[in-house]
């Protein structure tokens, strides 16, 4: 479980996050939603240690991440997998080399075993036949799948996904969402998904946080989300005509 306590982050004079308190539960897909520029990605980057918050702390299993020694931080990071918005695959490495990268860097297993693990990760994301290609030769959806394969290669305890559906068509989005949900359920890891895609929220969201103007505005389940009377949340959730129709069908 990851706990965030009173998290605040400033860039110069701009307060991006303020007093965020949240718990990200184990074995379920925790989603952070909000409008563009609301501070969702900054929250994720503070949680994985890419940004240092000015206030508050992030606790991994009760231990403050930012107070850890560098070596201890490194060990925690080896238990984190992250899928980036732009996939962030290494251009100079092939698909299989990308997935094998964390294993080669930190793994102690023989090379053959590493290759087997990498292949099983690629099989898990249904992209086994593209292992010799380079990232530039893959579509956006394939790159995301390779990104997931690389993120799960080290069998992480925490999986962060920053806008996993951005730039993808609805069908590929559903494939990615299902994959994230299935991996979370199979392995019982803590998954945090940053998104503003309501389809994705409806597909996979179990524990949802709504960030508005850098603050935690609302927290609850998918069912509570649809029945909430929070004005800002409703404006965000029902901005699209599809979601408005869902609400109408529910008698709202």
């Amino acid at each position, binding site marked *: 479980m990851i706990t965030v306590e009173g998290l605040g982050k400033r860039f110069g004079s701009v307060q991006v996050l303020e007093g965020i308190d949240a718990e990200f539960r184990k074995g379920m897909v925790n989603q952070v939603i909000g409008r563009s520029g609301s501070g969702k990605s900054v929250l994720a*980057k503070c949680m*994985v*240690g*890419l940004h240092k918050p000015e206030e508050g702390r992030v606790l991994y299993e009760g231990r403050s991440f930012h107070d850890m020694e560098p070596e201890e*931080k*490194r*060990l*925690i*990071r*080896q238990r*984190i997998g*992250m899928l*980036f*918005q*732009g996939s*962030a*695959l*290494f*251009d100079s490495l092939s698909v299989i080399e990308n997935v094998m*990268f*964390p294993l*080669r*860097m*930190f793994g102690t297993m023989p090379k053959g075993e590493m290759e087997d693990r990498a292949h099983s990760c690629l099989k898990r994301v249904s992209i086994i036949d593209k292992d010799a290609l380079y990232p530039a030769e893959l579509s956006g959806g394939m790159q995301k799948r390779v990104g997931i394969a690389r993120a799960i290669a*080290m069998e992480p305890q925490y999986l*962060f996904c920053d806008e996993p559906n951005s730039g993808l068509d609805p069908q590929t989005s559903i494939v990615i969402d299902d994959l994230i949900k299935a991996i979370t359920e199979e392995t019982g890891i803590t998954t945090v998904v940053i998104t503003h895609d309501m389809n994705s929220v409806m597909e996979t969201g179990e524990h949802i946080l709504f960030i508005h103007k850098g603050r935690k505005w609302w927290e609850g389940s998918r069912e509570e989300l649809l029945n909430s009377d929070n004005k800002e949340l409703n404006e965000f959730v029902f901005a699209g005509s599809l979601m408005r129709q869902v609400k109408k069908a529910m008698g709202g």
Partner: protein
Amino acid sequence: MKCGQSQPRFFRYFFGFWDPQPKAIKAKSSIGNQRLNVRNPMRCQGKRAGVRATFAPHPAHALRILFHIGQYLLLLRETFMRPERLSLYWSRTVEEMDLLGVKSLGIVALLSAFMGAVITIQTKTNMDSPLIQAWVVGFATRQSTILEFSPTVISLILAGKVGSSIAAEIGSMRVKEQIDALDIMGVNSAGYLILPKIVATMVINPFLIMISMFLGIFSGWFAGVLTGIVQSDDFLTGIQLDFKVYHVVYALIKTVVFAFLIATVSAYQGYYTRGGTREVGVSSTRAVVFSSMAILLANLILTQMLLL
């Protein structure tokens, strides 16, 4: 007119630490109407910034230089931390030797051949006197090639070729979040990306410079004999006369220091790139300019230390 618009881009990009400071900023900043960005003083904010440009230094410029020196040293400290997996670093170092060194052989050979020939012809043209011995042309070609042309000029050329490539590669990785990905995996990104480049350039550049020395002197002899301006025997006597091995050692020491500067200054520019593709281009340009400046400064210091 906005701040910085009165000056050509050349000043803003290359001499940002001594950039023209509009008087309006100096007047207004003291009363808080203008905010001066310490990291980039040229990006002043305010409606009435920039009326007349002067070349007065500003405390923010000094702060900015100190900031960059400090950040550069911190990056070096991170770079030289213990590698996670030595075998991976080694294979990357070999790749970098090929990319940064072996693939530069062509341009080094071409430049050295032409420059050696030109040095010979120029020397003969400018020292054509009955009082000057015939072997002087060979002697001058050897000395200028070994002492200055090969280690310094070729290093400056490599700063352009290799430096821009290092900054562009690392800068692209930064803007495409690949460095963040390395950090999140728990990899020391500075060490993994920069250390192999430093080792590769420091190992391979001395070989490039030795090849350049040989080709420079050989092409000087070839051009001299071919054009008939110098006799082969005279030239060969000149290049053997009063030869000091220390001069080659001095040139190689300079080369190793220059290689370190090219790799680290360029990597620094790339590693701290923020923004998008335009900023990668700016980092690449800055890498060439600042590593060239560092080479020239180091050349002066090393010459003073090692030759005098």
